């Protein structure tokens, strides 16, 4: 029974939150890494693309809610999601047309594109704040829990609870589905193959008749879709606030770089590495130890490697370590 309690406590406070946060980061990092893979620049506006997509989805959700449409136990935002993706894709394609294309045609070095994306970031930042405001928004409806902590305790009779949220389940399923689909798309379809060809060797791809503008447009659409999905899942799980999304940029890039910039598989792994390193290294193992150790070995301290103040430092230490020993990331990325 004690071992079960220890396992349950660990699952509730480390495994589940880490996996959910990891899945959300992974989806965000996938979008950033795709753009890097094809266009060879780090898109700083990615966090705000997430915010824009979430905002569009929230607006549609409110509209649906006001005319009385709901999705049963699932959040209404899932119905609104496709519209949010279309709105975001349109917005980023327009940005590409107005801003990035000019620089791409002039074949500027990638550092200039990074700076351009920084400018785009500030503009998107402002647009989102102008439309929906700076406040915290809750848009999750339907059931919040698959089962609550109290229910779990009654069922199992254990002292420690596990609560499973609908948004956690959706995040994990969505991450698996999206990653599987993306893998299939890049590996099996003609468009996916042309994208990989373009990413591997731009000149050779151009010689084989691949239309670069089409590849770029599809990349933007995919990145917008991934950003919107990641943003909406994140917002459903926690809450939506433009500033928080802007701050998500750092862990997302840490995830993409740890995994290997430009490598989709790496982005997934990176997302989970960053999430688990934040949650697990700063977790206090006292509760787990109390259940596992005999009575006279009970710990007095918190059995915590680092206090939670350092959780951001942890993910960046992982980043530095990976870059020191494997500069192209855990999975071979495009960055040398």
């Amino acid at each position, binding site marked *: 029974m004690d071992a079960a309690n220890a396992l349950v*406590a660990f699952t*509730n*406070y*480390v495994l589940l*939150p*880490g996996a959910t*946060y990891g899945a959300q980061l992974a989806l965000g990092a996938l979008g950033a890494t795709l753009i890097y893979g094809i266009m060879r620049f780090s898109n700083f506006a990615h966090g705000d693309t997430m915010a824009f997509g979430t905002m569009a989805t929230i607006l549609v959700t409110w509209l649906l809610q006001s005319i009385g449409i709901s999705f049963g136990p699932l959040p209404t935002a899932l119905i609104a999601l496709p519209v949010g993706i279309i709105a975001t894709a349109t917005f980023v394609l327009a940005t590409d047309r107005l801003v990035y294309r000019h620089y791409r045609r002039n074949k500027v070095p990638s550092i200039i594109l990074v700076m351009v994306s920084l400018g785009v970031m500030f503009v998107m930042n402002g647009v989102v704040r102008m439309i929906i405001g700076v*406040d*915290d928004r*809750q848009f999750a409806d339907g059931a919040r829990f698959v089962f*609550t*902590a*109290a229910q779990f305790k009654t069922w199992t009779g254990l002292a420690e*609870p596990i*609560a499973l*949220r609908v948004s956690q389940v959706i995040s994990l399923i969505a991450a698996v589905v999206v990653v599987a689909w993306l893998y299939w798309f890049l590996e099996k379809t003609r468009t996916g193959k042309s994208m990989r060809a373009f990413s591997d060797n731009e000149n050779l791809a151009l010689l084989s008749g691949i239309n670069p503008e089409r590849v770029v447009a599809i990349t933007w659409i995919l990145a917008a879709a991934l950003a919107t999905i990641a943003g909406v899942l*994140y917002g459903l799980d*926690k*809450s939506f*606030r433009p*500033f*928080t*999304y802007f*701050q*998500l940029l750092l862990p997302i890039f840490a995830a993409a770089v740890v995994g290997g910039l430009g490598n989709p598989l790496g982005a997934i792994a990176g997302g989970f590495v960053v999430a688990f390193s*934040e*949650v697990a290294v*700063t*977790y*206090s*193992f*006292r*509760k*787990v130890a109390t259940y596992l150790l005999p009575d006279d070995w009970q710990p007095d301290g*918190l*059995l*915590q490697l680092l*206090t*939670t*103040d350092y*959780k951001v430092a942890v993910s960046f230490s992982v980043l530095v370590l990976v870059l020191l020993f494997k500069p192209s990331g855990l999975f071979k990325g495009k960055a040398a």
Partner: protein
Amino acid sequence: MKKFLLVSASLLVLATAAKAEDVKIGIEMGFTGPIETLTPPMAQAAELVIKEVNDSGLFLDGAKVTAVRADETCIDAGAATAAAERLITGDKVAGIIGPSCSGAATAVLTNVAVPNGIVLISPSATSPALSTLEDKGLFFRTAPSDAREGEVLAQIMRDRGIKSVAISYTNNDYGKGVASSVQTAFEKLGGKVTLSAPHEDGKGDYSAEVGSLASAGGDALVIAGYADQGGAGIVQTVLDTGAFSKFAFPNGMWGASLVKRFGTQLDGAFGNLPGTDSPGAAKLMEMTEKAGIAGSATFVPETYDATALMLLAMQAAKSSASADYKSKIMDVANAPGEKIYPGELAKALQILKDGGDIDYVGASAVELIEPGESAGAFREQEIEGGAVKTVKFH
């Protein structure tokens, strides 16, 4: 020529007489800077007291009080010091209401008030650091120190039979101050603090923070944060994981957004925030409304009380010299004596003139504790059925 001499001589007598009776009070507040929106009604409240006292004609044998405003800027200690120096050496004020911000109050107190021996009564400086500053008995404040909030919360938790708590605080001066005062006071009362750890505002994910708080355990979780910031994130994660079933909230967490967002999930959560059920507050509202002042604005009651205390102390000491009346401030503010509410200053002046005792209650139920600061009135609240309910007042 004779007539002229007579007239000028009598004018001179009148002028010197007027000068002798004139008591000047400095009102030094942040009229520009970060709290410039708060200070205008505060200064008006101070001037309302002065008008009330002048109208009574009972102050120090019919002396007139005048107000001199000065700008402390809130953030520029140099400007605050210069303005206070001008008030004291130029305008020869008998005391200063202000400064309104803690930083400016510290600078003015150490650089100007103590060397010149002039009394300061701040209506709004709340930094705990001001409690320990060497002030030669010259500094008073009618707003409670931030530390009081934590002490009162610790007492409420003990009264509710809570034996151990974990504390999560927002990583700034306010959060740290409240967390450490809760911890000190709670441990003094025999309670146990299992962990006191900070959280950053505006972050997305708080699983790690809640994980370690849950591991430390406790009967309740104290969140010294903000209702629309990281505090709400911590609450959300705690509710999601079932880590704690009881919350204790200091002032910063009592935002309307919190109850709206979590509703009945927070049932049983309790805490405190500044507030009073004293009839004085309602009375002042009425008076300010009549005078066209924004009476519901922050620190207006405290400013009214600060000014009233200063003038009543002068009356009690029968002198407007700081050295004489500084020791009387605590006397007029606290029991024993006749209770005095806003609008009753004439009555108070009369009692003091006749050598009686008063217990000034005022608009903010002011009770001064050592070293010359308001004990503060706090409202204990609880969430029940998704709505906030007042339990009692402390």
